[in-house]
Structure formats: structure tokens, C-alpha cells
């Protein structure tokens, strides 16, 4: 994950993110100038300013949101995570105005979403939901072409775009575009849902538990594929989940919300795991938060020692997560293993102590919250 964050910063279309290394002030303000809200290319910055939603006069109704403020730079994935009823889905739906806030403002590239005509706003915001919500009466191809159709693209351009998107999410256009949603597996439906949301190349994607409805193996594959896709697309993404592990895996930034719709903590995953701001956050991320931090790092991040006796020691490719490496060392009942480099040659000895001390340093290449 940290490696992916750094890499996505280098990819095309997200050059802005290079300016977002820790300690570069003002980068958020510049985003609003570089990407006009009407543009379809690239990514948009997103900011919540004192956003509040009350469902009745009493405070603390499930789904209510209380004075929520945070900013997501263009091209970053921000995950809203929290227990059910904490207002995370409400917050997401206030961005495309499926729910209207009671107070505060939400800025998309510096422009208040309330000032934009609502259907025009929604067509520029990709929307993916847990139950997918594919239109059962339309074929896969026509589902993907819904927004481009609403936007008045020519049939020919729509067809080309649909084929491109299906291929992008790993579905053969010739095989899939004529099928109906009922003829797809759960995983295939989710892919079509993502393709549909990407159709008009929106600068912002809203994803509400997009992978929760599929089994864990498919979910993991969809997560990995989506992160790979995001490295190319570099969209700004607001992602809702109740699953801490998913939040840590997917998020460049995490907003932990608690009951009553309050923001409990906002920051990069490693920071939230290393320094939970409250007992609530510490409990929510779990007692194994140290291990979770290890899953954010790879063997390539660890200082190695010179190898002495190498026989019988486990060996680790550089992209092995430290959490997995540690587990393998414990199972093999040894203090160290061989860290390999990209070419598969031994780089040096990685020890349990070295893995433990890797947690002393904050992760490099993070987005400044």
C-alpha cells in the first residue's frame, strides 16, 4: 500500500500529488484552479466544511452528521470508516446531493456542490454502491453507457467508450456487453458497476461499500484490481466501509467516524494506527493495530544485515508484507529470513528485531492531511 501511494503519485494525471509531500502548504488551494469543476479529465479536490445533517431535533439520530470537516487532495482515496449509524453513508450521499445537508458546505474543486445543478453535478460524479444497482432491464453495455447517454455523447463514441471501460475492468466486451445483469456473477456485477461509474471520466468517485456484497476471495481480488486501476486513473475517491482492514488497504487517507456523526480522527492509515487520537479510535482499529501497521510495509522497507548461514531460512520477495514475513518467521521458528531483491538475488538478512523496529519510523511518501 505505501508503495502504491508513492507510485500513483508518479503516474500521469496526478502530477498534483507530487506537491503533496508532508509540509507543502497551499497545495489544496491550487487544485481548485488547475481543475475546473466542469472538466471531465483528471481529478478534483474535495472538502467538507462544517457539514451537518440532522434528521430531527434530537441529536444522535442514526445517520446524522455533526460538523464534519476534512479535505481530500485531488487523486487521493479517502476512506470514511466507522460503526453502523455513524453517518458515513450520509456523508457520502451529501456529496452528490442524494441527501441535502442541514448545514455547512461541500466543495468540489473549490465550488460548493449546492451551487451546481443537481443532475449535472451527479453526472460528473461516479457512484458505486454495495448492491451495485445495475439496471436489470438493460444489457451490460447499455448499463455502462447510461451516463454518456445522458450527457448526449454520440452513439459511436458511447460504444467505443463502453468497450474501453469493460476491457479496463477486466471483462471481455464481446462476451459481456450483450448480457443482462442477472446473467453475471457477483464479482462481475461489481466490475460493471465500477465501469458504469467511470463512464464519463468523472473527477470524483463515490464508492459506498462497493466490495461488501462479494465473498472474501473475490473482494480481495477486486480491491487489488481497483488499486491497480486507480494507479492509472488517479481519481479522487471517497470510499465508505465499516471494515477497518479494507480502510487501511484502500485509503491514502482515513476519516474515522464515531456515533453521532462526529469525526474521531483524520489522517493517513499508518498515523491512525500508530497514534489513535482517542480510546474510541484505538478500540475501533483493534488491539492488533501494530500488526496492521506491518501490513502497510514490505520487506523492501526494512534494513537488512549481512547474511551468515543461509541454509534453511525462509526467503521473501521485496513486495512481501512485513506482517506476512513476521508470520512466516514465527512459523519457521527462526530469528531471520532472506530478503530478496527484484531480480530474486539475496539482498540481506531480515530479522524479527528489524521488522519490529520498522514500526518506529512513520511511513514515507504519504499525503499530507
Amino acid at each position: 500500500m505505501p508503495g502504491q501511494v508513492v507510485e500513483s503519485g508518479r503516474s500521469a494525471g496526478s502530477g498534483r500529488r507530487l506537491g503533496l509531500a508532508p509540509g507543502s502548504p497551499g497545495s489544496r488551494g491550487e487544485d481548485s484552479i488547475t481543475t475546473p469543476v466542469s472538466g471531465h479529465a483528471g481529478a478534483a479536490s474535495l472538502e467538507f466544511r462544517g457539514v451537518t445533517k440532522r434528521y430531527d431535533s434530537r441529536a444522535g439520530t442514526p445517520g446524522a452528521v455533526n460538523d464534519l470537516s476534512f479535505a481530500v487532495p485531488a487523486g487521493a482515496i479517502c476512506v470514511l470508516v466507522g460503526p453502523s449509524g455513524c453517518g458515513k453513508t450520509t456523508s457520502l450521499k451529501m456529496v452528490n446531493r442524494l441527501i441535502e445537508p442541514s448545514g455547512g458546505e461541500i466543495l468540489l474543486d473549490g465550488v460548493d456542490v449546492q451551487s451546481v445543478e443537481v443532475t449535472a453535478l451527479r453526472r460528473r460524479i461516479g457512484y458505486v454502491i454495495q448492491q451495485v444497482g445495475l439496471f436489470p432491464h438493460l444489457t451490460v453495455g447499455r448499463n455502462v453507457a447510461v451516463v454518456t447517454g445522458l450527457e448526449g455523447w454520440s452513439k459511436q463514441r458511447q460504444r467505443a467508450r463502453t468497450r474501453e471501460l469493460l476491457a479496463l475492468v477486466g471483462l471481455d466486451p464481446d462476451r459481456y456487453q450483450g448480457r443482462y445483469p442477472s446473467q453475471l456473477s457477483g464479482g462481475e456485477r461489481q466490475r460493471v458497476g465500477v465501469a458504469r461509474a467511470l463512464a464519463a471520466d468523472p473527477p470524483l468517485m463515490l464508492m459506498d461499500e462497493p466490495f461488501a456484497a462479494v465473498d472474501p476471495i473475490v473482494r480481495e481480488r477486486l480491491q487489488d484490481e481497483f488499486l491497480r486501476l486507480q494507479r492509472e486513473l488517479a481519481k479522487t475517491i471517497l470510499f465508505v466501509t465499516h471494515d477497518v482492514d479494507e480502510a487501511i488497504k484502500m485509503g491514502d487517507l482515513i476519516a474515522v467516524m464515531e456515533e453521532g456523526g462526529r469525526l474521531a480522527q483524520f489522517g493517513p492509515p499508518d498515523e491512525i494506527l500508530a497514534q489513535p487520537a482517542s480510546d474510541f479510535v484505538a478500540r475501533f482499529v483493534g488491539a492488533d493495530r501494530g500488526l496492521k501497521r506491518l501490513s502497510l510495509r514490505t520487506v523492501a522497507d526494512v534494513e537488512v544485515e549481512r547474511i551468515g548461514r543461509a541454509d534453511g531460512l525462509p526467503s521473501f520477495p521485496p513486495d512481501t508484507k512485513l506482517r506476512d514475513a513476521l508470520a512466516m518467521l514465527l512459523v519457521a521458528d527462526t530469528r531471520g529470513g532472506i530478503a530478496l531483491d527484484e531480480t530474486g538475488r539475496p539482498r540481506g538478512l531480515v530479522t524479527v528485531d528489524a521488522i519490529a523496529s520498522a514500526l518506529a519510523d512513520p511511513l514515507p511518501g504519504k499525503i499530507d492531511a
Partner: protein
Amino acid sequence: MSEEPLVQWDWLFDHLGPIAGRVEQHLYLAAIAVGIGFVVSFALAAVSIRRRRLYPFVTLLATAFYTTPSFALFVALVAITGPSVLSAEVPLVLYTVILFVPNIVAGFDAVPKEVLDAADGMGYSSGQRWWHVELPLAIPLVVAGLRLTTVSTIGLVTVTAILGDSLGGLGYYILDGYHRHFPTEILVGGLLSIALAVLADMCFVLLQRLLTPWAAARAAAR
């Protein structure tokens, strides 16, 4: 009566022309009732969907119509509007409402919530959403209502024969055969009425297949 054959074929062949005319009238009376009933019921259903609190009252009204014996209603109307097509159609239309409205409401209720949520999120206007998403997805149950109502109405048209010889469609033969103790006529009227109902039903099944190819795909996937 026992020495006479049940069906006198020469009567049948002598009356092919008038029988065809009665079939035409039967379909005409049924089509008007189903057509007007559908429009009225669609409006009532639309109101019931928008304003849920009115739905029980709409249902109550429709049920009240339905509980009135058709015979009594036809006779009562003759006193007001005479033995006219209007006297035949008013009860026929009223009886369709109880069959149509619940089916139309259920059809729109059956549109999955997440599909509507997605449609809004995609940026459909409310009119576009209704036309492109809600209506197509409501079609299976709406057509189910049409089938039920059409079959029921085609049967009920025969009762309009009590309004006079100029009405009743195939019901004329049933009533006439009864008065004259002539089973051939009763059978012709009854069996043709059944045949019309079955044919109309098959037409709607075909229509539904054409309108909802996705439903067939779903059935095949299961």
C-alpha cells in the same frame, strides 16, 4: 330435449355471419372497458404511489365497486342511461379498477430501491428515471394485471346481454339459448367467450416477452 343432438351444426353454419358480428362486439366492449379502466387505474395508482396515505382509500373504493353485484349495477344503470353502451361500460370499467390498481402499485413497488438510488446517482432527472427505469421495471406486474383484467372482463361482457339484444357480445347467445332451451347457442356463446379470453391472454404473454427480454434472461439464468 334428450333426442336432440347437443350441438346442431346446421344452426352454427347458418349463423356464422352474426356470430362473427357478436365476437367483434364482444371484443369491442371488452377493449373499451380494459382501455379506459387501465387509464383510470394508472392515474389512481400513480396517486397512490405518490401519496401512500391515499392508497387504502383507493383500495376501499375499488373494493366497494367490486362487491356490488354486477347484475344489480347493470339493471340500475339501465334506469339512468338506458340500454346503451354506456350502461354496459360503466360497471365493466369499475370492476377493472380492483384488479389493475394493486398490480400497478405492486409493479412500481417492486423496482429495487438500490436501482432507484443508482439511477438518481447517475444523474437521471425524475422524469427520465420514471420513463427509463421505473416504467420498464414495473412492466411485468403491470402486464400481469392486464392479463388478469382482460380475462375477467371478457367473461363479464357476457352479462351485459341482460341490457338488451343490442348488447352482450357472445353473451347474447347464452341468454337467448337459455330462454329458448337451445344448448347449441349457449355452447357457442360460452365456448367462444372462453376462447377469446385464452387468445387475449396469449397475446399479452407475447407482448410481455417482447417488452421484457431481460426477464427471460433472468429466468434462464436461474
